[in-house]
């Protein structure tokens, strides 16, 4: 078992990628993802990681090269943020449809305009429907652990879908935290070599990416969707096995002091740490507030989620992204929809907070919880509201 050492999270993520023995990395620089790929280039340059590092000329080419590489049978990694992820958009849909299991770390950052290098989830929420497995890390240790998990699950022959690990830009990617990197032997035990059933090989020719005429397009999409939904079991099982090898336990949905709670705050990503402090304070003040955190966003952990929140009176969903003119933040709309058919479901209040690097404080969480309490008595006027905006 490795030692806990203070490390910048980006560096630790790159070290984890190295331990996964990736064969090909194709990436383009964009803040705040740069420290990950810089460190990987260094590892390749020093011969510590035997891989090809393709210094592509754009993110569009980064993901395109990744698909070519993984289709040829190489374990493949990339990383990006914000505008870079948006530039990849077109190709992101093609990876899961062709069942090409690339792993990508997204250091989440706001989308322009106004141009902002700071953190929110606007970039990844625009990629909600791409069909990739998507997880959100709360802290540095989890970011690292989710990388091993992502490769393990994505490349599983029952899965064969690409995976994104989301880490909050700067507020997580640039933090220095005590992180335990496991021994190589543990990683090797957890992550078998990549052996895809189908690959580009002249000894066994096949055609990838053919035309889907109307007579087969829907069948192809149905097959993709069924496979994606059934990947859920493998994802959860891989976390069971993760515990056996590494000793840390992960679930698709996490809770904090949720037992007997009336109001639950729901969040994804590293802000959950602040939210926990807020919960502690509110609990001390006698308020029955708890926390729900979605670690797995796609495929959506529907059953586990409903089971977790069904006893609550109110769920206050904190979105880090804005869907202008929608019926709520992207996570809130999803959650409302998930709960709609549940008898005695909790009410859902939608808050948009922390856009473009705006700090979300313990007091902000307290304010949102208070409003959520208030909305139990009086219906909100608007389907969603922004928190922390200067008037």
């Amino acid at each position, binding site marked *: 078992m490795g030692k806990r050492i203070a490390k910048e999270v980006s560096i630790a993520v790159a070290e984890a990628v190295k331990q996964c023995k990736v*064969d090909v990395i194709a990436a383009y620089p964009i803040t705040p993802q740069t420290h990950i790929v810089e460190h990987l280039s260094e590892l390749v340059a020093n011969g510590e990681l035997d891989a090809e590092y393709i210094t592509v*000329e*754009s993110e569009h080419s*980064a993901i395109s*090269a990744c698909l070519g*590489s993984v289709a040829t049978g190489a374990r*493949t990694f990339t990383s990006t943020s914000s505008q870079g992820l948006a530039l990849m958009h077109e190709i992101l849909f093609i990876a899961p449809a062709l069942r090409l299991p690339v792993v990508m770390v997204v250091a989440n950052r706001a989308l322009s305009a106004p141009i902002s290098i700071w953190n929110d989830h606007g970039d990844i929420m625009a990629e909600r429907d791409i069909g990739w497995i998507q997880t959100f890390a709360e802290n540095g240790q989890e970011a690292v652990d989710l990388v091993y998990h992502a490769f393990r699950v994505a490349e599983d022959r029952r899965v064969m879908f690409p995976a994104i690990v989301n880490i909050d830009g700067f507020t997580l990617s640039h933090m220095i935290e005590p992180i335990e990197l496991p021994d190589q032997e543990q990683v090797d035990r957890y992550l078998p070599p990549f052996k895809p059933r189908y690959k580009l090989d002249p000894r066994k*020719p096949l055609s990838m990416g053919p035309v889907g005429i109307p007579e087969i397009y829907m069948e192809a999409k149905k097959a993709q969707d069924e496979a994606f939904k059934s990947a859920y079991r493998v994802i959860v099982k891989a976390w069971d096995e993760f515990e056996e090898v590494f000793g840390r336990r992960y679930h698709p949905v996490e809770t904090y002091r949720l037992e007997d709670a009336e109001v639950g705050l729901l969040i994804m990503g590293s802000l959950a740490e602040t939210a926990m402090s807020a919960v502690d304070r509110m609990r001390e003040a006698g308020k029955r507030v708890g926390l729900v955190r979605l670690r797995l966003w796609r495929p959506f952990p529907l059953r586990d989620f409903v089971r977790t929140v069904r006893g609550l009176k109110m769920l206050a969903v904190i979105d880090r992204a804005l869907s202008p003119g929608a019926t709520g933040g992207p996570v809130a709309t999803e959650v409302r929809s998930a709960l709609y058919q549940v008898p005695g479901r909790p009410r859902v209040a939608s808050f948009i907070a922390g856009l473009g690097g705006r700090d979300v404080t313990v007091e902000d969480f307290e304010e949102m919880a208070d409003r959520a309490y208030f909305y139990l008595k009086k219906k909100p006027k608007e389907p969603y509201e922004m928190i922390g905006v200067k008037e």
Partner: protein
Amino acid sequence: MRKELAKFKGFSAKNLPKEEPFAPGHRACQGCGEVLALRLALKALGMNVIAISATGCMEIISSPFPYTSWRVPWIHIAFENAAAVASGVEAALKVLKRKGRFPKNRRVDVVAFAGDGGTADIGLQALSGALERGHDFVYICLDNEAYMNTGVQRSSCTPYGAMTTTSPPGEKSFGQMTWKKNVPAIAVAHNIPYVATATPAFFLDLMNKVKKAALVDGPAYVHIYSPCPTGWGSKGEDSITLAKLAVETRIFPLYEVIDGKYYITRKVTKPKPVEEYLKRQRRFRHLTEAQIREIQERVDAEYERLLRLAECL
């Protein structure tokens, strides 16, 4: 001459490969010059190939699931990224060979195909990136001088004066009002070891150039002129004639650029007038005598420039 090419004797009618990596039964139009170029290029490369196609006519006609014309491993991802996908394939082969997960001594040629739109317009950035990075692969542009797959819209490779659906002649237009982009020159500017032009009318020349492109270490670019009866308004049976005339009028000269040095592979000493080429195609039918003269002058000047390049360097 590069040492990788020293042993290559060239194809002749006697030693043509038997294999057809590209199978018949595809859905290309009658008289398609592009699919002929594609078939010949693959025939030159053989079966130890991984092919990447950009979106376009050749991708559509060759892969209507569950059918495929590709007897070699083939992948299509999108329109503008064939060169980037090829970069990934090449890098993967390299590292897998190094790590012993692919037979070290097995030669595999990585070849990317794209049309003129996928090369000169939307795919130019990905192409430039891949050429600059020095991947060992062949990029083949099958140039039919417009976006044929979407219904004959103009590209930057559409010739001056040509009528397309987005460069229609009218009161204020005579068709395409810009001169064809010189993509081979752009490829040459990347200092890659091999660049060539070819047409299916001179099929041995085409096959030899594609083979040489594969044999050199590093990136190679082959620009293949590909007649399109549907888009050009020409007769299907005229495709080879047009491909020949394009060379004989000096409109599409055949040359190679090896390590930056230009070689004209088919010198045209007694050129035919461009009109002979233009008049066989509906896309040029609206042109006036003055416009044809303008094209003639430009073609003459371009050929002079090419001759100087071939002499000086």
